């Protein structure tokens, strides 16, 4: 026989039991549930109250700006109240933990009042836990009461939770303010917090979430799954969604905090290969340079199977394991490399990552050429490629780090892009080229550099070999190809390729079939399921054997559908010459785009991609003003789709995300010098540059909120046509 404790024991049954124990007088026939719970709550509060201190500050700012670290475009900001805040004793020798929110306005002086002690004490900030938004204070005091910790393993959803704070009542010898609720969830905010429906707000941030028997679950902090920083989550205060960092975790990291070093999140430095983080196995798609993963010797293509003894079946599991970890925490990682299992021990997490910088060789590849090799369409002046003597028409056959005995063979453009994504600027590479004239094979050496922020003035045409559909061989995929296949195989009916007067490859094979009718020109489409409309402009010379770039135009507020004629006219010549399709989704509201519309817009974009032969390296989100902000947002939130974002008169709404090797994103940003927003536009640009994204910036002279001038427009077109430069 084995007895098990019922997991679902009604929490308030326990409450009553506790209440009856705490107050035997009430255990009379007349007592009711309300008396019992009331007594239990007060007893719990009284038990913890001596450890809940009052914090007062002087100086600092009136408002806390929304963006983290005071960067980014100015947000609404949060007004910091003038009242006291709350802290919790965590060590008898004068250590107090509190919420970082209470110090987000950077006060110059901090004072702490301990219950039962009349004297206010000067407090110093020892360190911050940047992952859990906590601040450790030190006061000169001894024999402080440390509260009892509620063990994490015993926390269950439904247990009573009281949040206690010191803001409302100036007298610390009075009971702290109380709000009543339950534990709503455990392991929230990536395993870092307990959730409660008791009210949490600046009234009790830094105070404690307490069980009905007077033990401390954790310290109340504002938190959000969508944002980071001291103020994240404050906007939903008192909303029934509150968080507390488990006291057990705080005590565990206390020795490190006491050393006075800020605790930062531990970063491994890997990004997933695909976008499905739930069903796909966790295969490493990219590794940040000089990251923990890079130092440990993990490689792109490794499949993570286990971390610290816990099996990892998808990328989401990995994120949950990584969520609570700190800088310098050590991991034991097991991966599958090919069919070999490899173990990495003592992988020490880092607190920062070096931003990924795309390496640049300086050629523009000929598109839609199944290979083998990649024909050079254009050589950028002053590039490593030019210095190495690469000429237009040469065919790059092999490409790789110079340290390898022989550079690996390159099948096609996608393979060359994948190869260079794994190399950092500064790497010496060996390149085997087959010369245009005479077909002589030579190996040259070059040193990769960071991508420059310039645009070629004129790019040569044609840009396509017109064999987009040849590369696809669905029935016979190469089995031991060292490089991933083109992750974006073009779709579409088989068709003739354009007979253009260019050097064609030897294995020319032109299947002749009946030409199915393809719609071209300006068309209006409807997403029937959602009742939304978008327009798409396909140039009249559309040929499915030539992959097309896609510019997704985000209109200005109120212009939805009205500007389709104008925009398609604007892009008409470019679309035909350089093979681009233009589309314009329509915002649901007259007032403009909302971030929540991203998903439907991406659906529309994917519908167009499925119908036409689209070059996935040249999908651009383009917009003006409010449309530009949407372009930024969609670009960052649908990184599997977009490779470029081009805006005019728009600022970044949110801080930019990281630059990732296998989901590159390039930016073309412009604004008029008379636009009142120009300062913020420049600031947005700087933030992107800081993250090492390739950014082209154009400030248009004598311009306010107009669309591009002629010069900027030309630059934009050349930028869009060179998104696949290597």
């Amino acid at each position, binding site marked *: 026989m084995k007895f098990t404790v019922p997991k679902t024991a009604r929490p308030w049954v326990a409450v009553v039991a506790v209440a009856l124990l705490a107050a035997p007088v009430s255990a009379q026939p007349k007592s009711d*549930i*309300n008396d019992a719970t009331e007594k239990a709550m007060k007893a719990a509060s009284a038990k913890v109250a001596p450890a809940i201190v009052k914090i007062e500050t002087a100086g600092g700012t009136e408002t806390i700006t929304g963006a983290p670290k005071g960067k980014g475009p100015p947000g609404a900001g949060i*007004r910091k*109240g003038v*009242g006291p805040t709350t802290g919790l004793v965590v060590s008898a020798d004068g250590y107090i933990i509190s919420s970082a929110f209470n110090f987000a306005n950077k006060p110059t002086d901090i004072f702490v009042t301990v219950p039962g002690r009349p004297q206010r004490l000067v407090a110093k900030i020892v360190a911050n836990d940047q992952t859990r938004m906590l601040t450790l204070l030190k006061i*000169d005091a001894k024999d402080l009461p440390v509260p009892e910790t509620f063990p994490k393993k015993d926390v269950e959803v439904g247990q009573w939770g009281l949040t206690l704070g010191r803001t409302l009542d100036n007298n610390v010898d009075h009971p702290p303010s*109380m709000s009543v609720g339950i534990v709503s969830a455990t392991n929230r905010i990536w395993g870092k917090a307990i959730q409660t429906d008791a*009210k949490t707000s600046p009234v009790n941030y830094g105070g404690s979430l307490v069980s009905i028997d007077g033990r401390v679950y954790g310290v109340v902090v504002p938190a959000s799954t969508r944002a980071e920083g001291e103020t994240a989550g404050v906007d939903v205060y008192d909303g029934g969604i509150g968080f507390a960092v488990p006291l057990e975790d705080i005590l565990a990291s206390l020795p490190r905090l006491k050393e006075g070093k800020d605790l930062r999140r531990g970063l491994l430095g890997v990004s997933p290969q695909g976008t499905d983080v739930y069903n796909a196995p966790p295969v490493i798609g990219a590794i940040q340079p000089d990251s923990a993963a890079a130092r440990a010797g993990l490689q792109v293509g490794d499949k993570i199977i286990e971390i610290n003894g816990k099996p990892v079946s998808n990328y989401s599991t990995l994120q949950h394991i990584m969520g609570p970890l700190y800088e310098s925490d050590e991991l034991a990682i097991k991966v599958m490399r090919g069919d070999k299992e490899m173990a990495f021990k003592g992988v020490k997490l880092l607190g920062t990552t070096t931003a990924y910088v795309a390496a640049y060789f300086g050629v523009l590849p000929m598109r839609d050429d199944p290979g083998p090799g990649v024909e050079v369409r254009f050589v950028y002046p002053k590039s490593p490629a030019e210095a190495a003597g690469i000429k237009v028409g040469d065919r790059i056959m092999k490409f790789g780090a110079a340290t390898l005995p022989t550079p690996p063979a390159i099948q096609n453009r996608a393979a060359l892009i994948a190869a260079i994504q794994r190399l950092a600027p500064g790497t010496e590479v060996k390149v085997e080229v087959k010369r245009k004239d005479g077909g002589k094979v030579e190996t040259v050496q070059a040193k990769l550099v960071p991508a420059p922020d310039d645009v070629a003035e004129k790019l040569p045409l044609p840009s396509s070999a017109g064999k987009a559909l040849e590369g696809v061989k669905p029935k016979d995929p190469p089995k031991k190809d060292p490089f991933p296949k083109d992750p974006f195989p073009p779709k579409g009916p088989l068709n003739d390729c354009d007979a253009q007067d260019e050097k064609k490859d030897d294995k020319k094979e032109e299947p002749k079939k009946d030409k199915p009718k393809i719609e071209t020109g300006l068309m209006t489409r409807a997403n029937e399921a959602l009742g939304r409309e978008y327009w798409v402009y396909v140039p009249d010379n559309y040929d499915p054997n030539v992959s097309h770039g896609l510019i997704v135009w985000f209109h200005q507020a109120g212009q939805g559908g009205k500007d389709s004629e104008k925009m398609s006219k604007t892009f008409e010549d470019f679309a035909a010459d350089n093979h681009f399709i233009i589309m314009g989704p329509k915002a649901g509201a007259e007032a403009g785009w909302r971030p929540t519309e991203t998903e439907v817009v991406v659906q529309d974009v994917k519908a167009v991609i499925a119908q036409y032969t689209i070059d996935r390296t040249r999908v651009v989100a383009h917009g003006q003003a409010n449309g530009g902000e949407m372009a930024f947002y969609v670009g960052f939130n649908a990184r599997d789709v977009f490779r470029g974002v081009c805006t005019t008169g728009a600022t970044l709404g949110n801080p930019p995300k990281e630059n990732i090797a296998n989901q590159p994103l390039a930016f073309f940003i412009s604004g008029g010098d008379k636009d009142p927003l120009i300062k913020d536009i420049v600031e947005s640009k700087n933030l992107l540059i800081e993250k090492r994204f390739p950014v082209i910036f154009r400030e248009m002279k004598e311009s306010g909120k107009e669309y591009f001038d002629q010069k900027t427009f030309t630059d934009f077109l050349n930028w869009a046509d060179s998104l696949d430069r290597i």
Partner: protein
Amino acid sequence: MPTLKRSLAKIPTKQHHDTPTMFTRYSALLAVVAAVATPALAPAADPFADTVENANKKLVKVFGAGGFSRLNNYGTGILISSDGHILTVASQLLDTSELVVHMYDGQRLKAQVIVTEPLLDVALIKIRLDGKKIDEDNGLNLEKGKGYFDFDAAVKRGPAAPGDWVLAMTNTFEIALRDEPLSVQRGVVSAYTKMAGRRGIFEFPYSGDVYVVDAITNNPGAAGGALLDKKGELLGIIGRELKNSLTETWMNYAIPIVGKTEFKEKVTVKDKDGKDVEEEKTSTVSVPEFVTLALQGKYKQKKREEFIGQGGYHGIIFVPNILERTPAYVEDVAPGSPADKAGLRPDDLVSFIDGEPIISIKALDEYMKKHTRPGMKVRFEVRRGEALQTVEVELGQHPPKPKLPLPPPPKP
């Protein structure tokens, strides 16, 4: 229902405040359901049901001025006499001669304002029959305790404490129509403390004790509702929608039945030569005093008059006030000034005066003007190095402003 729509339209501007209302209301219901579901533990079938039903008969829905912009034209009121005296909040709602109340049974009656006291933010109104004068018998004859709250008994009972269960009954968002019972919210007394609220940019006049409630009670239409203890006894009057200046968050509060507040008024006294002089006096006004006198028709609205003077003189010269909240660091003290005599020194940081935190030079100036006068002794807590020192400063008269230098005399 145009009024309801209007109040709902307001939600986006105050989302974080209004939305939780629904949660709280439902959780209150759930709590009641939970109690019903466990007959073994609860002696009564439902300890709140009877309480709520009884209390509802002693509360009314009030309709008055408003209904435009963001002002709602509905509120709540508390019956406190057998002939229909109603205690409510002194809001814009009462600025009309067409005041109407709905009794618990749906009776629609006219009402008239007897007197208001903005200092306490309370008002007494009375039900008046059509064609009759306000002091004529309206024939209501409500029963004490059943038809109206026994106000005196409530005062005698004294205030509730943090952690006590409370019920709020209001017509929040005008959900209860005509004879429908008022909406009930359950919570605890979060704190019993001094009011530190502000409405817009104006400081709220009431600065006495207040119940802060752990339920989202203060929403449109709730003002004037009742805060009750778990037995249904009257504790306080649910207040307005205010922001707490301590935290910059929306506040859920009720003015206690025993609430009182201090105010400054001008009195005329004779000086030692027998001449009439005006002097400032700090007086107190309480809710019980208001109610007792107002019921007798004797209450007169207090005249609040602030002397906006310079306050007492300390003689501290502060560091340049260049930041939003420049801490009150002492740069120097005027020789012979009260601060000098008290031993304040350069680099001291004035942190608290009489226990009140001083977050900036601006806050210190405001405190001096508002709370001090020449001759007063105040306790400064100053940070000197790593410790706080307490010094007593006897404030003096501000020295006369130095006269502007005279223009040089014209040359002959």
